[in-house]
């Protein structure tokens, strides 16, 4: 059974493809054994645009991870993102048969199926149906209705759906790299697993995972997912803006952003310049620091404003009491916290994965939050499945038969 405990999370990101190998301990903790990564090619805005190159990236990342963790990877859990992913909240209801009265996990499945009777576009797939709250005979705030007595079971769900073919393409890409895909999870759900603790979820929190091509966000209110979304803007856009605004090549703009860039427009003094050395194919130049920061500030501020507007349309921001958590590679940008605080009017923290053990260089880097989150999500799913496994399931089927 020991081998079963090995969990691998794969994120095919716009900037990098990374695979996290972790060991799930019986006490529920998670230890990272190794992280493999490769620079992404053929990924734009979190979606595959060049299939063959993407496969090669996944292969490289997997091979790297196998080497670092000294383990063989057979299957992975995959994080997906992209502007096609949408979400909505919906309630499902089911009636408990008169002769039984006691709610079992079959009813939980029924109520979930009922919630899925919602119109989503034909080409879309359900990715997640996340339970928010249960109601038994209109009694609110039921955490776990199994075993309770009632006539009517209702549940609110947060439903995430996305375009089928695009998810299939991601899965095909994984398959082509000769590993099996277990399940898909969206970036924001994954990141939230390791960025937030239960207390913060209960208080209400926003997680903003700003990656290379997309910004994935999720809102927890009263311990449940209230809203999630994807905005196809990320670090790539900042780089692109710099490249256009300062007329320098993309690669140079990327380096300038990470080394010198700041989202704080007041940081630069007038006349403060940065000298870019000449390079092959680039004849060097001198740029104003204030220009660089102004370009970054405009983009970052707009990004936060768009996300805030979307969240405010779906949730009451006053119920978010633990603040905004920034994660993802782009959250390392200097000054980004102040801009977020300015827009959201909330305490803002830059965070990385927590509650995991392993090499600190890995889990303290917000770049890996999603991939580690995928592993955590996988662990939670396995724990959830286990008690209901085999004997209990069979038992419940027999009981149903007997009752019928």
């Amino acid at each position, binding site marked *: 059974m020991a081998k079963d405990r090995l969990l691998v999370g794969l994120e095919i990101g716009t900037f990098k493809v990374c695979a996290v190998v972790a060991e799930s301990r019986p006490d529920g903790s998670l230890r990272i054994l190794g992280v493999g990564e490769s620079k992404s090619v053929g990924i*734009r*805005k979190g*979606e595959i*645009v060049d299939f063959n190159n993407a496969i090669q990236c996944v292969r490289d990342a997997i091979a790297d991870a196998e080497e670092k963790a000294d383990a063989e990877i057979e299957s992975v859990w995959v994080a997906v993102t992209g*502007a096609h992913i949408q979400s*909505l909240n*919906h309630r499902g209801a089911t009636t408990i048969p008169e002769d039984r009265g006691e709610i079992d996990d079959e009813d939980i499945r029924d109520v979930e199926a009922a919630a899925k009777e*919602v*119109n*989503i*576009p*034909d080409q879309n797939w359900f990715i997640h149906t996340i339970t928010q709250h249960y109601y038994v005979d209109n009694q609110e705030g039921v955490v776990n209705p199994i075993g309770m007595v009632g006539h009517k079971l209702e549940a609110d769900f947060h439903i995430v759906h996305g375009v089928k073919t695009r998810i299939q393409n991601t899965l095909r890409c994984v398959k082509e790299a000769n590993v099996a895909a277990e399940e898909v999870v969206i970036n924001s759900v994954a990141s939230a697993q390791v960025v937030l603790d239960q207390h913060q979820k209960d208080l209400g929190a926003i997680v903003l995972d700003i990656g290379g091509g997309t910004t994935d966000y999720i809102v927890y209110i009263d311990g449940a997912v209230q809203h999630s979304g994807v*905005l*196809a*803007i990320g670090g*790539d*856009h900042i780089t*692109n*803006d710099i*490249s*256009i*605004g300062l007329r320098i090549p*993309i690669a140079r703009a990327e380096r300038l952003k990470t080394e010198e860039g700041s989202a704080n427009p007041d940081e630069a003094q007038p006349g403060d310049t940065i000298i870019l050395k000449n390079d092959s194919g680039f004849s060097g130049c001198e740029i*104003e620091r*204030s*220009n660089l920061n*102004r*370009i970054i500030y*405009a*983009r970052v*501020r*707009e990004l936060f404003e*768009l996300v805030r507007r979307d969240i405010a349309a779906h949730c009451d921001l006053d119920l978010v009491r633990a603040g905004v958590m920034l994660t993802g590679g782009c959250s390392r940008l200097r000054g980004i916290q102040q801009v977020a605080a300015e827009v959201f009017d909330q305490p803002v923290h830059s965070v990385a994965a927590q509650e995991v053990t392993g090499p600190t260089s890995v889990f303290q880097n917000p770049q890996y939050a999603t991939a580690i989150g995928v592993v955590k999500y996988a662990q939670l799913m396995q724990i959830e499945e286990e008690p209901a496994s085999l004997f209990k399931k069979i038992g419940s089927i027999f009981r149903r038969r007997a009752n019928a």
Partner: protein
Amino acid sequence: MPDAMLEIPRTLLTEPNAAPPRILVVGVGNAGVSLIDRVTLAGLGAMLDLVAINTDGVSLSGSVAEHKILIGAQTARGLGTGGDPEVGAASAEETEAEIATALEGAAIVIVCAGLGGGVGSGAAPVVVELAKNGGALVVVLATLPFGFEGRRRVQQAADAQVELAKHADAFITFENDRMAELAEPLAGVHETFATSDEILAQTIGAIARLATMPGPIRVTPADLLAVFRQSGASTIFGWADATGNNRAHEAVERALKSPMLARGKSLVDARATLVHIAAPTDLRLAEIRAIMEVVGRHTDGHLHLGVGLDPDLTSLSVSLLATSGGAAPVRATRSAPARHQPAPSPAVEIMEAAPEAAEPEPAVPANASELFDTSPYAVAKTVGAKKAAKPEQKTLSLDPVARGRFEKSEPTIVGGEDLDVPTFLRQKIKLR
């Protein structure tokens, strides 16, 4: 006198002698009648003549249409047809004379029906034939049944489509199955149907406006024919309106996202596209150009432009009518798709730029159907003209938007704004 000086432009603009063509909207069957009611409620009744035709007396008496015709008093005895198209057709033939009288003198007849049932599938083809024989331009607007309504209704609808296409100049269909996708996921049945009715009512309103509105570039029934020309072709329609500074861009983008256009994808195959812009009198030439450029990016077919101005309008609206499929001598002669080529913008034929358009163009016969018959030659000619015109149409490729590395990726558009364009450019932040 200063007053007299002001008069001159106004008379030019309003074209006093141009009597707008009479447009008749005929609702056939229950679905058609209820659609007519919605058109009336939408306030379009003033510029249209509405006729409700049904076998069911109860449904007719509930309608707000000014002119109602109960068909098949003997055949159906004032009741429904029980979903039998033959009863529907027999009913319409029984009352043929009355229907023909009602259709008399109309320049454009828009026939609305829900296909699949008895009256819609049976009587509508008869009405269309009568209208066509009366010399009108006939536009059919039909809804197709839900897939779950059963094979029989779907088959009846398919049969009716074939019948209707024989005589109709334009045939716009709307699949009920797509309704679910158009409405919000959580919308109720009522809202979902309201959305669908609204789209159809908009279509009627836009066609009517397109043909009647005064303006610098008018559209005559003959121009509509030029777009529709071949029967058997399917017609697609998109419409949207917008206000504000960015109205031109917003309206055309939303029109392209219209349910039947599928984000401009259907336009790719379109042989001809009619773009009609209805706007208040402050419409700028730059806005027209912007709209045509956007549409041109989605199609390499022939573009027809119509512009209508009305001081009473508050918003700018863009209607797109396009035909694709059908008999396609055009496709064979067409050069490789031009949408991958960066510079050339499609040839734009401005059909009637003369503001003193009191009379229709001399080339247009009084009876629209005559022109209809000359179609193959005319189509070939326009295509030839387009090909020849292309090299000269080259404009400087001054791409106003810089998207950099996102040039080829799917644009991130939120609230009508292309977010791939650097924020500092869009917000016009000055760099030193």
